[in-house]
């Protein structure tokens, strides 16, 4: 970095220290940070808390859609020889189920929680790029609607979420179904990418003074790791889909068996796909690592190993993609290498599991609904992990690939390590978001119905797979020995869905009628619990000064004489400001000017969507128009500031 002395800087300022007294400085900051009124304010809102909640609600809507699709399929499969769905309808349903759950729910829900929580966990007033945050949400919404537009008009993707060629090539799938999926997923990739960049820079620059990298909550490590992975992995799948679209629209030869190479699709897809699997579980594991200790009344056992395990899982996660391709006839050497890598990756996962178990074991657990969801995740993770290790072995995989065993495995992983922690996170952070606790009695019903329903519904999938039932079949004849277990799977799934429904009911009734929470209902250690529930638009009236990993438990733990300063800190009230700190130690080195409300993200999204609609319908003028709108929105977005250090500037 350059050796400029900060005092020499034009527009330099010494930030004032202030103490929170009554309504000050909050009342003044409220005026600066409040989002504008009305519809215009709604479309130009850049507050990370609003965006986070929108993400969570939208992702849950896709979860419901994906769940309903699954239930219809389970009705079809509940007994042999059912004809509720035609094969074509079934293909669209299982494809849309996979897309909804994996792309439109699993990652965005975690982005939603991280969006909401990150600045609160880090002691900042917003994410590093508030407008980019809004853009990420709008593009996500647009891509979801884009993909579902195909489905509701009868042109839904129908070759499975991993969309293998040549099934997805033009000669075998001539409709626009695949073009919509291809471009919709590229659109979603943009959302994921800008969101990931935002998390990375937020981590590097906006932690409160004193919050060195070894003091951030594990959720931060989880989302950070996932974000770095997304930044590097998403281009692979976007490219895969782009090349598919080129093959379909312009007759290129990337994937056809004659001049091209169909396996290129699988390589590009899984080079993204496997890191992605970790991207949609690591933040959820982070939630458990942060939530569980609160209810065990002790810090997480092994913070450093767990943080390192998070990062190393991801690093290894880039070297295991071929285990999705064991049955494609590859030579022995890569099979051995990727099998070995897939076995080794269990080591860091096991580190986290043992850390959680030890935290419960050595703690004094307070059994709440959130605790139950977090703790049950450990069990489900172990089951899903063990079935995963089984398929990491090449001969076992050859036997089990494309059977229901794999369906069972992936649902244990995704529901076990994503949905259960997420529902736990809802119970845990709902009081922060709304100021009200969720109903505990209903919560117990909620948990047990989900937990029992899930295991009844999904455990038999393993044995069905061992009995040879293939995945992705729309029906099966009687007398295969699968009928009874399929009925159990269908009943269990229905019970599980009922449990998820109870979550929604609990959210609905507690939203207005829940017990008042206060700032820290659980007696939790991290910064988000030091501010009112729900937090004000500016989050922190003064930016806190951090002295330990558990700012709210320092008195009880008394690990060192150092105490964080939560009520006295940096004022920063010359406009929308927060502090920029150094990357490792969290030393203040810059006053960050944050942008206010902006419609640019929404307009940019409209432009992008027009571009992609043009790409599907081959209306090139429409694509051009969309591109022009994007260009104008971007120039407006990046328009430089002339004036600094004052409240009068609003662009930037």
């Amino acid at each position, binding site marked *: *970095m*350059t050796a400029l002395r*900060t*005092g020499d*800087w*034009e*527009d*330099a*300022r*010494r*930030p004032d*220290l202030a103490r929170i007294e009554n309504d000050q400085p909050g009342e003044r900051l409220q005026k600066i940070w409040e989002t504008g009124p009305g519809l215009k304010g709604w479309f130009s809102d850049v507050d990370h808390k609003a965006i986070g909640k929108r993400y969570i609600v939208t992702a849950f809507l896709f979860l419901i859609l994906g769940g309903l699709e699954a239930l219809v399929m389970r009705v079809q499969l509940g007994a042999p020889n059912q004809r509720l769905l035609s094969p074509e309808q079934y293909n669209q349903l299982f494809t849309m189920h996979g897309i909804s759950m994996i792309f439109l729910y699993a990652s965005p829900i975690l982005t939603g929680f991280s969006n909401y929580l990150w600045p609160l966990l880090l002691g900042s007033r917003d994410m*590093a*790029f508030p407008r980019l945050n809004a853009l990420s949400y709008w593009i996500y919404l647009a891509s979801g609607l884009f993909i579902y537009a195909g489905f509701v008009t009868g042109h839904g993707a129908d070759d499975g979420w991993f969309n293998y060629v040549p099934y997805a090539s033009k000669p075998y799938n001539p409709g626009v179904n695949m073009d919509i999926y291809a471009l919709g997923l590229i659109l979603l990739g943009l959302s994921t*990418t800008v969101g*990931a*960049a935002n998390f*990375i*820079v937020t981590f*590097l620059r*906006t932690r409160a*003074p*004193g919050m060195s990298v070894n003091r951030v909550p594990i959720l931060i490590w989880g989302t950070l790791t996932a974000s770095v992975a997304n*930044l*590097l992995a*998403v*281009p*692979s799948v976007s*490219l895969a889909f782009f090349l598919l679209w*080129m093959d379909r629209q*312009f*007759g*290129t*030869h*990337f994937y056809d068996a004659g*001049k*091209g*190479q169909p396996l*290129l699709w699988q*390589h*590009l897809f899984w080079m993204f796909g496997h890191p992605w699997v970790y991207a949609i579980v690591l933040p959820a594991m982070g939630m458990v690592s942060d939530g569980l200790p609160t209810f065990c009344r002790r810090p997480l056992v092994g913070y450093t190993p767990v943080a390192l395990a998070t990062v190393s899982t991801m690093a290894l996660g880039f070297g295991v993609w071929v285990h999705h391709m064991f049955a494609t006839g590859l030579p022995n050497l890569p099979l051995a290498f990727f099998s070995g890598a897939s076995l080794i990756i269990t080591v860091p996962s096991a580190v986290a599991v043992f850390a959680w178990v030890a935290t419960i074991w050595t703690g004094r657990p307070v059994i709440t609904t959130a605790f139950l969801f977090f703790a049950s995740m450990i069990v489900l993770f172990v089951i899903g992990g063990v079935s995963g290790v089984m398929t990491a072995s090449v001969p076992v995989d050859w036997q089990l690939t494309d059977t229901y065993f794999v369906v069972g495995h992936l649902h244990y992983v995704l529901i076990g390590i994503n949905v259960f922690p997420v529902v736990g996170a809802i119970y845990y952070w709902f009081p922060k978001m709304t100021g009200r606790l969720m109903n505990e009695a209903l919560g117990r019903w909620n948990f047990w119905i989900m937990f029992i329903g899930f295991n009844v519904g999904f455990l038999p999938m393993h044995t069905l797979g061992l009995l040879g039932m293939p995945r992705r079949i729309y029906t099966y004849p009687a007398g295969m020995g699968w009928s009874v277990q399929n009925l159990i799977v269908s009943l269990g799934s229905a019970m599980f869905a009922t449990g998820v429904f109870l979550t929604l009911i609990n959210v609905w009734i507690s939203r207005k009628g829940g017990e008042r929470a206060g700032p820290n209902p659980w007696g939790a250690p991290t910064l988000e619990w030091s501010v009112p529930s729900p937090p004000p638009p500016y989050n922190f009236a003064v930016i806190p*000064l*951090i*002295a330990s990993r558990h700012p709210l438990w320092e008195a009880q733990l008394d690990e060192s*004489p*150092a105490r*964080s*300063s939560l009520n006295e*800190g940096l004022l920063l009230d010359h406009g929308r*400001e927060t502090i920029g700190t150094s990357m490792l130690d969290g030393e203040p080195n*810059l*006053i*960050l*000017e944050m942008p206010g409300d902006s419609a640019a993200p929404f307009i940019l999204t409209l432009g992008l969507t027009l571009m992609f609609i043009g790409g599907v319908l081959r209306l090139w003028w429409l694509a051009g128009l969309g591109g022009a709108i994007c*260009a104008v929105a971007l*120039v407006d977005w990046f328009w*430089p*500031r002339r004036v600094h*250090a004052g409240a009068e500037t609003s662009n*930037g």
Partner: protein
Amino acid sequence: MADAVYEPRSLPVGSREYNATGWLGALCLIATEGSLFAYLLFSYAYFAVQHGKAWLPDAHPSLRYSLPGTIILVTSSATAWWSERSLKRGDRAQHLAALTGTIVLGLVFLILQLFEWKSKHFTLSSSAYGSLFFTITGFHMLHVIVGVISLSTVLGWSLAGYFSPRRHLHLTISSAYWHFVDVVWLAVFFTFYITPYVW
């Protein structure tokens, strides 16, 4: 560490060179775009390995347009660097001249690329090689176009007096992007134009 006390000292307000969030955001953009090209070149290598030498077109690719293009692009990186350096030293005239030069060199490269495209006797859809060639060089040209547009916008802002020797993050980011586009070209050039001769 002792109590969290903080000695307030004077801090710059807003974006400060490499401490600016915008700079880090630009690095993220470069990382993800770099990955995109890595996956594109992976696809080339994958086809080369899968199909063997017979997959290449009969004649090795000519350097007639691509070599001058490469030299021009490398030169434009130098002028972009010179432009930023002049601005830091307060020499506005040189800064504007070098920035304009960078844009012009970028446009010349694009024109050379169009000649290069016209000179090929395969097409996007005639073979996998053709598909890869036009897709990869097309992706790169698209990035050159974006770079030229962003440098031109920065030139406009500079003429309007938005930048000072200290504050010119937009220029820093645009030239970093430009350097990135040039580095990518070197990788593309090496892959398409050099490897067939040494394979």
